[in-house]
């Protein structure tokens, strides 16, 4: 966790339970070469949801952030059980993930210019304390995220809501005038700019309603009042989190959560190896359980040879993108022919092997994650999976580049190192010497997201969007405003044409038109040679034999907790 997990962007942890989804690039703990057979990605899906029973979730995380303001959980994992937001995600076992209404009646009605969004709340929605949920509660929940004590969550809304400069939360009595609540059922957001992805932003976990005026920053997370199908019965750091039914929740107002189990026990601080062994053994307790952590390599190999266990393994198709950022501020990389040569020379087959084989990764040539609407598959640098060395050498000759040495900054966990070595070997084959610079996660982050562009020519990194919009694959990584200051434009790409496309796509409200622009941006960025897409990582999870509706959609690469039920 922790685990030799690997992260990307927002540097958080890797089980899907209590944690961050964001940019976790949860590489499956260095999945060993487990052969080429693949697991289905929708095991246990399709059964109708049965009610009752106690579901156990093993989780290597030792803490649980139950205050929505601080949560990095995905909309459909642990916090999806506890809280509702204006919108949520519809994840099916095949097809793209969609944004759908949750507390609201629609996914939002934009003004003509896309800068004002209006929502109306459904009727029959209640908190776990029995009080009806009003628009003021939604507003208060969002205002809380601006308090310094609660600022640690996903913050997509913060820069988008108008008039928030210097605002530090509702605790001193100040409210945001840019969020209007004309009546108890209506909420209107005024944004700083037109923003087509606003329905996705209001689906993030930190946008959950919180009882107005009754949620102190320091203590609410210990006894949260929830809006989803479950409420917290008890929580002991490092031991357990027990969820029981929220008796005021109504299925009629919430078609997106099946709320099967009567009770859900999170067993925290589990060792991932012991967790996997417990699930493989499938004893009385484990048959009603699943693991929130990736199955470690050794157990994955063990499972590969055991069909009855393999039937209970669920592997995502493809998700977090592992890529090589090419530092455009490095004088060594100013030649576009050299950058093209780097694209052609990469041996993705060896990167797949280094990642743990085909069960852990699949080759990538584009930026937008599979399963996200609007993704277009393409390969601007046609080559086999082992690369096109002839073409690469030709380009290097044309550019007159010989005896080049490049520094590759990488995190020092085993999987990152293995992938970096694969990259090193790929480039050695065309005469480029790559020197590895292995760093701790903190030092690596500080180097590649800092204001100085020196210290690396290439950087190995990975990214998973926080919500399934192509925007989140592109803007945080390639917009010029995201260079330095702790942001993740690691390639330091500063291209006015790309910025313009990003801005245009963000301001396009029609999803189809916006998606076409994002696909165009994807292609335009790869064409600059600022990034060499390597692989999409795959995550594997294991369930007990009595667990039903345990599946992973095309996005995200995590099980849908809100659909899981137990056979009765």
């Amino acid at each position, binding site marked *: 966790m922790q685990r030799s997990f690997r992260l990307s962007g927002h540097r958080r942890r890797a089980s899907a339970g209590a944690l961050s989804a964001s940019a976790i690039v949860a590489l499956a703990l260095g999945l060993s070469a487990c052969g080429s057979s693949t697991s289905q990605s929708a095991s246990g899906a399709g059964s109708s949801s049965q009610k009752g029973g106690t579901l156990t979730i093993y989780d290597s995380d*030792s803490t649980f952030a139950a205050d929505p303001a601080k949560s990095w959980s995905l909309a459909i994992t642990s916090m999806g059980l506890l809280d509702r937001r204006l919108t949520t995600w519809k994840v099916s076992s095949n097809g793209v993930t969609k944004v759908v209404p949750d507390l609201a009646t629609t996914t939002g009605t934009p003004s003509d210019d896309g800068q004002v969004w209006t929502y109306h709340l459904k009727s029959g929605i209640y908190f776990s304390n029995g009080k009806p949920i009003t628009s003021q509660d939604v507003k208060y929940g969002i205002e809380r995220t601006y308090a310094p004590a609660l600022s640690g969550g996903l913050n997509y809304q*913060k*820069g988008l809501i108008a008039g928030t400069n210097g605002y*530090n939360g509702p605790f*001193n009595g100040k409210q945001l005038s840019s969020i209007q609540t004309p009546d108890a059922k209506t909420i209107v957001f005024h944004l700083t700019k037109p923003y087509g992805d606003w329905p996705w932003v209001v689906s993030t976990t930190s946008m959950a309603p919180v009882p107005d005026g009754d949620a102190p920053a320091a203590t609410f997370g210990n006894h949260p009042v929830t809006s989803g199908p479950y409420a917290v019965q008890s929580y002991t750091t490092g031991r357990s989190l027990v969820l029981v039914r929220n008796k005021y929740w109504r299925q009629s107002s919430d078609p997106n959560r099946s709320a099967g189990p009567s009770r859900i026990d999170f067993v925290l601080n589990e060792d991932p190896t*012991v967790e996997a062994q417990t699930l493989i053994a499938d004893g009385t307790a484990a048959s009603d359980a699943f693991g929130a952590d990736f199955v470690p390599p050794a157990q994955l190999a063990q499972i590969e040879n055991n069909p009855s266990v393999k039937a209970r393994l669920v592997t995502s198709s493809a998700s977090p993108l592992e890529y090589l950022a090419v530092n455009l501020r490095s004088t060594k990389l100013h030649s576009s022919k050299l950058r093209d040569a780097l694209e052609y020379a990469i041996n993705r087959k060896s990167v797949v092997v280094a990642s743990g084989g085909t069960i852990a990764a699949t080759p990538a040539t584009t930026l937008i994650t599979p399963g996200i609407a609007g993704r277009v598959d393409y390969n601007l640098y046609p080559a086999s999976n082992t690369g096109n060395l002839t073409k690469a050498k030709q380009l290097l000759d044309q550019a007159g580049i010989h005896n080049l040495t490049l520094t590759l900054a990488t995190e020092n966990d085993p999987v990152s190192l293995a992938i970096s070595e694969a990259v090193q070997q790929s480039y050695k084959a065309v005469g480029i010497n790559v020197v590895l610079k292995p760093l701790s996660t903190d030092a690596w982050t500080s180097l590649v997201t800092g204001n100085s562009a020196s210290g690396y020519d290439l950087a190995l990194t990975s990214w998973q969007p926080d919500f399934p919009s192509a925007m989140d694959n592109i803007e945080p990584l390639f917009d010029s405003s995201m260079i330095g200051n702790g942001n993740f434009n690691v390639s330091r790409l500063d291209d006015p044409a790309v910025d313009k496309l990003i801005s245009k796509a963000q301001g396009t409200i029609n999803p189809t038109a916006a998606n076409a622009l994002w696909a165009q941006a994807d292609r335009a960025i790869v064409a600059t040679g600022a990034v060499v897409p390597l692989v999409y990582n795959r995550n594997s999870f294991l369930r007990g034999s009595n667990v039903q509706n345990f599946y992973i959609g095309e996005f995200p690469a995590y099980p849908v907790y809100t659909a899981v039920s137990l056979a009765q």
Partner: protein
Amino acid sequence: MKLARFLTLRFVGMIAVLLVVSFATFVVFYILPADPARMECGHLCTAGQLRQVRAFMGLDKSVWRQYLDFIVGIFDGRTFGSGKGAVVCAAPCLGYSFQQSRSVTTLIAQTFPVTLSIAVGAAILWLISGVVAGMVSALKRGRPIDRALMTTSIVGISAPSYLVGLLGILVFGFKLKLLPTGEYVPLLQSPLQWAYHLILPWCTLAFISAAIYARLTRSQMLEALGEDYIRSARARGLRERRVIGRHALHNVMIPVITVFGLDVGTLLGGAVITEKVFSMYGLGALLINAVQTTDLSVISGVTLIAAIFVVLANFVVDLTYRLLDPRV
């Protein structure tokens, strides 16, 4: 009088060591590339928000001032912010984990009983088994039992606790289904379950540590048995049991107690691997998680507590020395 002077000097020394440790930890962690305010500010944090968070956490002050706030907080508690948005860290405040929304003192208080349970049981087990094995080996020198015990001790010394723990879980937990594979049950909740769940961690730690004690006891015992005073004791016609049990063992125990004290002190600071393998959330697991998530206040707080245990253990060892060996 001599004892009072000894105690006073030692006490002053201990406080000095702890101040140095706490300051060093504090400085080391605050000059690392990790910025606690940046981490607490969340994703997509703007410069303005970062300033707010930094001021709220008190990180906009000088390192000296921050250290002073930390020390004052131990005696007087700390409050970050004001009103309903305030975060209060009651005295003795060893820092506040904004990541976990808990004071470090609370986190330590929650996790210490786990570590203490593991440490006490394991220590008793390894001390007894190690010393007994060492004595048997020494008295049966060269015999098969000596060889068997010493070979086993080499395995114990060389095996990583992670491997021993996992093997224990695999054999006794999954195959034989005799013992639970982990999870801590509080003593007050059920003393029987408490002990039942701790058997494997105790045995794992004892197996690894007892090996060192067995070898130490054996070599000390062999050395003692060759000493003049043992020969004199035998010559005076004392019974062998008394010669070994009273005269030889007395001297053997001096180095053993030294090592034991330090080991227990270190262990109380967290049985990192064992806690992790057996899914027990003690000080070690708390620390390792804090390292992984760069939760600096937890790292500083736990390091200070661990240092206190080591310093105290040293002190107790020195006191015991005086009792065992009046020459000191």
